[in-house]
């Protein structure tokens, strides 16, 4: 208990001494907060978007089988699906029809898909919120899509997808299989790719090996692989951004070092008096450490709070284009707020650790001042 009491007095003293020199410290706190804010925004955004990708991919098929012709993806014959159904452990095999469509009017690329769901009327489409925005179309409107033969076909917008699914459905146009084949000129015997479901998750790799054996001109893509690729891509992007900001961290460290070494005559005299009335060097170092810690923790906390607001409530306006990528039709979505101790420790290592190390030696130099020489200043 005695130890805690002692530290309380130290904190008290450190706070009052920081307040006395608030003009000098405020600049440091502002720059420090800004550095934490930038790094925390990057880290929070990456983590949240990775989680979002995981959630989105949870509903995707276990394995996607694509056909490759001369190294390029090509349409896959429908009979391949029958071959795939014979593999033990496969619970469902479906042909998928999807395509990209470039709309010259809005200069945007859309994804057109077809589903075999019942009630998908011919001549009608469903569209994502992003498409609706860029085409200025709503429920009941007619839209025209240019087909493979150059002629335009018109479709009625039956409905739009809910904004909750926007991350996946922003650029989506959904239509019936017959319309799709007619529009893009794809024969009945072909699909874009084939999806498979495997009952036992641990057998996915084995099943995809079998796919390769049976159909050597295909490439099976596992859902886990897509996830891994997303994770690496986002981690890489945020890592590169962090490396770019290393310059600003270094500038901040030089600033912090400079602040810590340039003691005013008043400060030196203060330390001199403290030592003259009986404080030893160790105690002055503790006092200086507390001062550093108070500055660090308050700036760190402020930086993290601002970053939290920036990423989760303001859609990370500053870094959005770099981290998310960009497109004409881009989903509007709000990330689910979450922070864990892992991110906080990462940020501590990137900001508080360098700051602390940059200020240890200056605070030791300050505390090792001889009382008589300090008071004579």
């Amino acid at each position, binding site marked *: 208990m005695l130890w805690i009491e002692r530290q309380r007095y130290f904190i008290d003293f450190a706070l009052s001494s920081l307040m006395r020199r608030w003009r000098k410290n405020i600049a440091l706190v502002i720059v420090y907060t800004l550095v934490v804010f930038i790094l925390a925004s990057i880290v929070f955004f990456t983590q949240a978007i990775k989680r979002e990708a995981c959630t989105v991919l949870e509903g995707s098929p276990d394995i996607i089988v694509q056909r490759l012709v001369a190294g390029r993806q090509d349409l896959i014959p429908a009979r391949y699906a029958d071959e795939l159904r014979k593999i033990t452990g496969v619970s469902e095999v479906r042909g998928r029809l999807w395509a990209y469509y470039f709309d010259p009017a809005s200069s945007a690329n859309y994804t057109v898909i077809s589903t075999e769901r019942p009630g998908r009327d011919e001549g009608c489409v469903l569209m994502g919120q992003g498409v609706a925005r860029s085409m200025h179309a709503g429920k009941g409107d007619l839209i025209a899509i240019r087909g493979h033969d150059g002629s335009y076909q018109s479709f009625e917008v039956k409905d739009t997808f809910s904004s909750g699914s926007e991350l996946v459905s922003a650029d989506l146009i959904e239509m019936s299989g017959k319309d799709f084949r007619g529009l893009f000129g794809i024969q009945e015997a072909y699909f874009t790719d084939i999806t498979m479901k495997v009952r036992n998750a641990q057998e996915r*790799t084995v099943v995809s090996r079998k796919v390769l054996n049976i159909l050597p001109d295909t*490439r099976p893509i596992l859902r886990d692989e897509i996830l*891994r690729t997303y994770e690496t891509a986002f981690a890489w992007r945020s890592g590169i951004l962090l490396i770019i900001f290393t310059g600003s961290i270094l500038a901040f460290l030089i600033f912090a070092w400079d602040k810590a070494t340039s003691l005013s005559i008043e400060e030196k005299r203060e330390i001199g008096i403290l030592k003259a009335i009986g404080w030893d060097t160790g105690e002055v170092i503790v006092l200086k450490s507390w001062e550093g810690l108070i500055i660090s923790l308050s700036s760190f906390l402020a930086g993290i709070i601002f970053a939290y607001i920036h990423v989760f409530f303001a859609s990370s306006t500053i870094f959005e284009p770099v981290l998310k990528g960009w497109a004409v039709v881009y989903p509007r979505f709000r990330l689910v707020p979450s922070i864990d101790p*892992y991110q906080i420790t990462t940020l501590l290592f990137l900001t508080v650790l360098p700051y602390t190390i940059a200020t240890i030696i200056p605070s030791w130099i300050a505390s090792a001042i001889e009382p008589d020489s300090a008071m004579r200043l």
Partner: protein
Amino acid sequence: MIIDPAVIALFTGSFLVSLIILIASWLGLQIVMFWNLQCGSEKQLELEKWTYLVSTLMAYAFGFEILSLFLFVYTTDSLHNLFIGAMCAAGTLNTGTFGYHTLGIKILILILAGVWLVMNHVDGQAGDYPLIRKKYIFLLVIAPLVLLEGFLQSAYFLSLKADVITSCCGSLFSSSQTYGESPLSLMIGFPAGYLQAAFYGSAFLSSGLGFFYYRGFNKLGWFFTISSTGFFLISVFSLISFVSLYFYELPTHHCPFCILQREYYFIGYLLYGMLFGGVISGAGAGILSPFRKIGSLQGPLPIVQRRLTMTSLFLNFFFVAIVTWQMWHSNLVIDR
């Protein structure tokens, strides 16, 4: 190499900690060579001031080493998605080269740095710095280990390569690469019956020695150090070999990292915290016993030693109690 914020943070951390350890050991070397308390020269006064700087540097380095161990385990755990077949930190550590070596050396540094701080604290209690040369020689032993840790960690992260989709055939073929046998599998293979006996035996021996040492049998100091270090090692083995099974309630799951997860109420942090606290205070208490003869330490040293011994006994007792309680109440029953 994988560029991830946490990996960059670990790189930065290890670089900066290596830097301050290098400064501390350079100053330590000067002190070892030129320290002479009887002399009032300017050099000696300077050296005395340096001792404060070294203590501060080491205290910070130790603090960051604790955080770095946590961040390292957590990072390897979060990277497991990137590798085929890795399900948690155990898999990721096995993926590149030097994964387990890095973890091992981090644990070793943590224990040694803890003992160094205990020694430093005791030295500060006496007015004439009786342990100054010894503690700085000890620091010169720790310093190369910290540099080695930085090297191994860098080599490990540089050797990692994510299994991502490639343009030809997905990443399927990369799964055929083999990563060698994990050190964990060696521990799992050890007969659990013997290990259980060794676990309770060493707990009993270590607490018995600790009790008598606490009561003033000063000659048992080194035995207590050895027994508490032994208990630490056997406990880590046991945690992997049989204790973890009762936490996971799965007879095949031996992972030492999954108990750190939310699903197990983060109990791993408590268990590992107690093990580290126990071994640092136990080893520290015993190692200090030869210095009781030094005049200026005769007053403060026994008090510090008694406190350390008590701390070690308490932490080890609660560790054994939690583990035993879990084995007793777990839904898993293993008939041997």
